[in-house]
């Protein structure tokens, strides 16, 4: 009788194992990695690179660019290109709270913390369909809104049709956001579309995070 449903049984068993392994990886990743690093120098080049990146991050503190921050490691991305969701190895136990801002080591905006678990957190990046951030154009000072979901770009809306915006202009967070403080670099203007029947321009922005690796991130309030 059971033999007839062997396909379904195997399917359910491995689904269960997949869930188990996923949960286990998220909760145990911090401990296991630290242990391995203490025991062996398994890859010198990777350790040297990691050291360099961490030095750059802690230089920010010395130069007093930002003083109160936490550093986390990226342990998972969804999807693997232009990730809309990033999982970091710091959670409630490390003082991470919902809506904290997440940057790269060069202080480019990645997104904000959306969900906090005990040992890990989920970050919604600017590539995510849900992302809406009030931004300002560095050159003209005009305020618009960026919208995610258009990887590899992000869409900037509500910039007036007669704006003097140019390709290559910086896009920064404005002062009018509930969660983000002003002046965080997001990206550069890549393409400007002037539609005749619209009062506003359609601006494609190339985010800085599209071209930098996501290994360690900075989190601050």
């Amino acid at each position, binding site marked *: 009788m059971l033999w007839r449903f*062997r*396909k379904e049984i*195997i*399917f359910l068993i*491995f*689904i269960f*194992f*997949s*869930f*188990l*392994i*996923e*949960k*286990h*990886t*998220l909760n145990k990743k911090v401990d296991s990695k630290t242990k391995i690093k203490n025991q062996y120098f398994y890859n010198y080049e990777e350790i040297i690179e990691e050291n360099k990146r961490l030095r750059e991050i802690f230089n920010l503190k010395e130069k007093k660019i930002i003083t109160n921050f936490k550093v986390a490691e*990226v*342990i*998972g*991305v*969804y*999807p*693997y*290109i*232009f*990730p*809309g*969701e990033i*999982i970091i190895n710091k959670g409630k136990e490390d003082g991470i709270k919902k809506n904290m801002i997440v940057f790269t080591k060069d202080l480019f905006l990645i997104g904000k913390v959306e969900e906090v678990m005990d040992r890990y957190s989920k970050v919604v990046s600017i*590539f*995510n*369909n*849900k992302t809406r951030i009030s931004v300002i154009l560095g050159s003209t000072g005009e305020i618009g809104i960026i919208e995610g*979901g*258009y*990887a*590899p770009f992000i869409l900037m809306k509500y910039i007036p049709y007669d704006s003097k915006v140019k390709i290559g202009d910086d896009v920064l967070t404005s002062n009018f956001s509930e969660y983000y403080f002003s002046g965080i670099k997001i990206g550069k203007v890549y393409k400007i579309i002037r539609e005749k029947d619209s009062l506003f321009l359609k601006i494609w922005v190339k985010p800085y995070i599209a071209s930098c690796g996501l290994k360690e991130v900075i989190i601050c309030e």
Partner: protein
Amino acid sequence: MNRKFLNFLEQILIISIFQYIFYNFLNFKIIPSFFLIYLLLLSFEGYTELSLFLSFLLGVFNDFFSKEVLGTSSLRYLLIVYFSSFFVVKSIKEKSIFIFIFSFLYFVLSNLKKGELIWSGKILLKYSFLFSFYNFLIAIIIEIFVREIKRKWEESYF
């Protein structure tokens, strides 16, 4: 039995090497999934149980290569392989078309989080199509290559 087992091991090793090379050394934005193609071909050949077991195993390999959380690709592979096992597919043409369809579903699944899409529909459609098309082409190449090997093998033995 032993020979068959060694054959499967050999195949897994080859596709793992290909997948690893594509993830780490080639600068492609969209990377075809050799694992998915292999699992679907196995399932179409009638090796459903083996295919389900390998879905779990190759999913873990895939997560290692793509830096996703371990277990997520396994879940997707298992779902796709399970549904694909209900179809009887024989010819190269049919196999390629089904691989296109299931690859498309796989990519859409990988973009779903709690019932919501991570990218907008239009962009997702574009990338899913590209991913499926790559897989479709690779499936055709693999099938032609395998048939050619089988033909040569038969010629030399009989």
